[in-house]
């Protein structure tokens, strides 16, 4: 008997609860592509020190996109105003640093808390109505917040933005440097921790119930899934993540302007998810890499028309992907798909039989 089959029998002989837990653990085990992605992200600290500012931007956009993926990809809630939470987090981090405490981790937590509270309150609005209602509601919330930031110049600096503050060393130990290296490491660490938590959430029964809600909210309720309370929870968590992303932008640039609440923020992050694919968390990261690099490259070679090319890329992706944007890889030749699937789905540990 091989070691693997012995392990399988041992697992099968275990108490049912233990087996179910083992199955959940295996489902949430790290895939090969995830390990490679994080190793590359860490290696870039040393390999591309001159591109640290760009890498920081990618990490921030990725966190923002992961936040949107939690509600769009898992719970099926469309939003055109997710930038509201990003912008709120950005302003709170700036104001906190200016008036209270310059240590960035504290500022990050405060910004996340503020966005989370706002997200919790807003979640009750998205519970009502259909997708179109939600699009308009979320857009309306973002527009109101943007106008408030613009008009409350005494607090936010208005159209000129909020500056004149410095961000202290991270945990009192690590100073932000001019080249953005510390900022990148800090943003990457926050993104990694946020992804750790998000992975646990989406692979737990809670995450599966969100998928059930996305498939059919009424049907999910009829088989015992408390759809409304789950939506409130995930919307609040997503708002906290967006707040973190906004705070990171403020802390790594030491400046906030009403641009953080502009409509294009919400539209861009939707575009990022469309590029990377929804409903598997890493779509946000992959989309952020492609989108930011594409924007950086296009804005250099064609400064006036880069939005045109981004738009063209979006049209092509949507035409190819149709309604199934998360499965764009199905358009690759079958042998290539098989290689990709095998490499991507490889996980360490014992296989627990079945298809699992």
């Amino acid at each position, binding site marked *: 008997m091989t070691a693997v089959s012995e392990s399988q029998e041992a697992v099968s002989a275990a108490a*049912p*609860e233990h*087996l*179910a837990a083992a*199955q*959940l653990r295996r489902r949430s085990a790290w895939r090969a592509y995830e390990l490679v992605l994080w190793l590359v992200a860490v290696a870039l600290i040393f390999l591309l020190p001159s591109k640290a500012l760009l890498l920081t931007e990618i990490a921030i956009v990725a966190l923002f996109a992961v936040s949107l993926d939690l509600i769009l990809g898992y719970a099926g809630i469309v939003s055109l105003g997710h930038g509201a939470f990003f912008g709120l987090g950005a302003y709170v981090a700036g104001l906190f640093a200016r008036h209270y405490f310059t240590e960035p981790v504290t500022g990050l937590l405060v910004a996340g808390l503020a966005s989370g509270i706002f997200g919790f309150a807003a979640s009750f609005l998205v519970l009502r109505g259909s997708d179109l209602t939600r699009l308009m509601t979320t857009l309306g919330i973002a527009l109101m917040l943007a106008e408030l930031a613009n008009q409350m110049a005494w607090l936010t600096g208005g159209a000129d933005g909020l500056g004149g503050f410095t961000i202290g060393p991270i945990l009192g130990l690590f100073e932000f440097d001019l080249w953005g290296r510390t900022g990148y490491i800090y943003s990457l660490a926050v993104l990694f921790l946020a992804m750790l938590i998000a992975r646990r959430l989406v692979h737990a*029964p809670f995450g*599966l*119930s969100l*998928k*059930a809600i*996305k*498939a*059919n909210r*009424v*049907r*999910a*309720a*009829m*088989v*015992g*899934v*408390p*759809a409304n309370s789950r939506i409130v929870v995930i919307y609040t968590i997503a708002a906290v993540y967006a707040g973190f992303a906004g705070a990171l932008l403020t802390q790594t640039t030491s400046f906030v302007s009403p641009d953080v609440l502009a409509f294009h923020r919400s539209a861009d992050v939707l575009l990022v998810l469309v590029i990377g694919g929804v409903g598997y968390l890493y779509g946000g990261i992959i989309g952020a890499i492609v989108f930011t690099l594409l924007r950086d490259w296009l804005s250099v070679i064609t400064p006036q028309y880069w939005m045109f090319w981004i738009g063209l890329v979006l049209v092509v992706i949507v035409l190819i992907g149709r309604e199934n944007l998360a499965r764009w890889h199905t358009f690759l030749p079958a042998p290539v798909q098989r290689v990709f699937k095998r490499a991507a789905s490889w996980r360490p540990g014992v296989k627990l039989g*079945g*298809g*699992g």
Partner: protein
Amino acid sequence: MTAELLRIEKLVAGYGEARVLSEIDFTLGEGQWLALLGRNGTGKTTLVDTIAGVTTLHSGTIRFAGTDITRMRPERRAAAGIGWVPQERNIFRSLTVEENLTAISRPGPWNIERAYGMFPRLKERRGNLGSQLSGGEQQMLAIARALMLNPKLLLLDEPLEGLAPVIVDELLGVLRRLVSDEGMSAIIIEQKARKVLPLTDRAVILDRGAIVWEGESATLLSDAGLLERHIGVAGGKALRVG
């Protein structure tokens, strides 16, 4: 005498302004199985959906396990112990078999391994998406999913509909085990009365949204004239039940 689990009094319900059920009254004891019979369009599914909480309830009361659930939301009813297996199965097609079961499981004697024990075929297909299952497998998954709620009452809406005879036999075997071993209560809707009457203690026949006959299943099973009069097809072909 068994304790009362479900009591329905003067129930008037339907969809929106349309009233399908009128003045329905019946009770169900703990561990009892009830066959809900009648021709197409007589209100059987509406009655079960009303117990699950997804129709418009105009008047009347529903008490479950001593609690008034008349105005309770569907998810609260499910949490209180009402497991629902809808007519169109309604499994989550984008989730795997295992995810369908895990997503809604609640603490209790029914867990994923026990569900697989009841339906070994589901264990074989645990990694397959709901959309990749056959009709029979989808029905098994719908029943297993309802069991994962650890219900006190199972609502089965035409669980044998559209299935191959061999799958029907397999599912009837499962239902028999649930009756004999689990002590669970159930309301089962089925067009072919003779297939389910041997499993149930009592039967209710609906016509035009009202109860027209209520009594022991054995009485109904032995009276072909009664079946013919109310259901019209003598309750389907006779079935040997072991």
